[in-house]
């Protein structure tokens, strides 16, 4: 089993181990740490000056509009997660238990396709479909309804978020459900548990870890997405990602954008920690 020769400094092992450490330190850890440092820099005459001041933190966190954005983004991402989980669950349940193996494989393959189509183009497509004179209102017009305003509303934003997250949520939920021990479900059934009670009290608890991970991914994606709230939601008020773009692109206030980004990271860490704790928490009694 042993490799031919053993040296204290193993050149062969290091050849494979070091490239990633070097590359990710320069191009992943470096940028993130620099962003944290940058949040303490100051901007003078449109130029960034290296410093250690809390001005940006005070300016951003002391303003109402930052917290409005923060709560809006948190609310929208939470709403998106709830909606995606509810829409996806019956579909994932069908794919996991009510179709053949080959149909499930095909379904998963179909759900991977959207990841490789441009999310921007799909959003633009929705923009045209949902518009005042768009496809949906034209169809509704034939039966004498509408026109409804769907763009620049929360509904539009959620449609955009669903475009981004729904395929992934269905895939993850399907895996979570397909992996549970169906004998336990049959046992519950045989012991007289009603179908809906079986889903609620047996299937969902068994698939808990996978379901929570699906919800977590949905939250992370929605929380960080600027396309849906910008193009379909009208960006008024802006969500945090839009705030980052505005602050960076037009305001040239990179340090303040960094403050927003760090607040987002901290929030995501907290949510991820809570979600993973819940996902892997085992109940004392069964």
């Amino acid at each position: 089993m042993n490799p031919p020769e053993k040296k204290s400094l193993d050149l062969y092992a290091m050849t494979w181990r070091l490239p990633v450490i070097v590359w990710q330190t320069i191009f992943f850890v470096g940028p993130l740490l620099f962003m944290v440092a940058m949040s303490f820099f100051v901007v003078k005459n449109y130029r960034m000056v290296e410093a250690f001041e809390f001005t940006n933190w005070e300016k951003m966190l002391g303003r109402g509009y930052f917290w409005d954005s923060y709560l809006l983004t948190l609310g929208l991402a939470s709403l998106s997660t709830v909606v995606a989980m509810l829409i996806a669950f019956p579909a994932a349940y069908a794919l996991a238990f009510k179709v053949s193996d080959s149909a499930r494989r095909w379904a998963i393959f179909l759900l991977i396709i959207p990841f490789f189509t441009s999310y921007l183009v799909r959003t633009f497509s929705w923009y045209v479909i949902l518009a005042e004179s768009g496809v949906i209102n034209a169809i509704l017009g034939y039966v004498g309804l509408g026109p409804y305003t769907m763009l620049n509303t929360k509904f539009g934003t959620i449609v955009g978020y669903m475009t981004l997250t729904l395929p992934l949520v269905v895939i993850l939920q399907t895996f979570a459900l397909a992996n549970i021990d169906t004998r336990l479900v049959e046992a519950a059934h045989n012991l007289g548990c009603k179908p809906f009670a079986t889903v609620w009290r047996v299937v969902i608890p068994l698939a808990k870890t996978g379901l929570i991970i699906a919800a977590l991914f949905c939250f992370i994606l929605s929380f960080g997405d600027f396309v849906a709230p910008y193009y379909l939601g009208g960006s008024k008020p802006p969500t945090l990602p839009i705030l980052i773009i505005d602050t960076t692109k037009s305001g040239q206030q990179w340090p303040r954008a960094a403050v927003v980004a760090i607040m987002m990271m901290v929030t995501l860490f907290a949510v991820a920690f809570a979600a993973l704790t819940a996902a892997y928490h085992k109940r004392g009694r069964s």
Partner: protein
Amino acid sequence: MTLDRAVTWVLRAWAGVVFTFVFIPIIFSLVFSFNSQRFPTIPLGEFSTQWYQTILADPDVWQAALTSIIVAVCTSVLATFLGFCTAYSDYRYNFRFKGAYLALILLPPTIPLIIMALAMLAWFSRIGASGEVWSIIAAHTVLTAPFAMAIIRLRLNQMDENLEAAAWNLGASEWATMRHVVLPFCKPAIISAACLCAAVSFDEFAIAWFVSGLNKTVPVVILEIVTGNIDPQVNAIGTFVFLTSMTLVVAAQLLFLARTARGTKQGAGT
């Protein structure tokens, strides 16, 4: 029992609705790209290839396509190399801080792209490399290497642990074993990882938008057109991007699935 069947059909129908929702924007984008109306609605206008003619006559689009291809190819080579190195290190060795080592490569996809974009923009201008094509490549490599690592690691899982040892016992050096045993075994996964990394890079717009400067990639051009006004050119460009990405993905799938099935049988034989 009839209730059971009814529930089954309702669930399947719901799955159908979800699939419809997922595919509506993709299908409509394709339809709109051949539609003469500037603002497409129902009833559709006439069949037209004018949007394709417009983009094919636009030098900016060609320039962006070239940049995108360069970025995608370089990214896929670098990311696959890094992914292979990490996957092999994880497969073969145990060492201190291995968890941190793996986190280093696996974490980037969990961080929102917009945050990575800002961090990359600031970092590259700090080290004097803002607006360079290679800075997009570096950023995309960080983003895609984890996918390459995952695919190659799955393939290494199928490799018999004694295979390497057998080669060593027969007198091959570690390097020769890598070249004649490990690399050939991983080849399908390596090619498939390269295709996937290229496809992801080809579609990425947030980081590219922040970092690219004047060297715009195709998704950045799409972003700028979409921001400007309603312009069905986007659908035409989208169709090309879709065809490119799907070719890469299907190639990756076919190579990975086909060779994996065959490789497992070979593995069982030895």
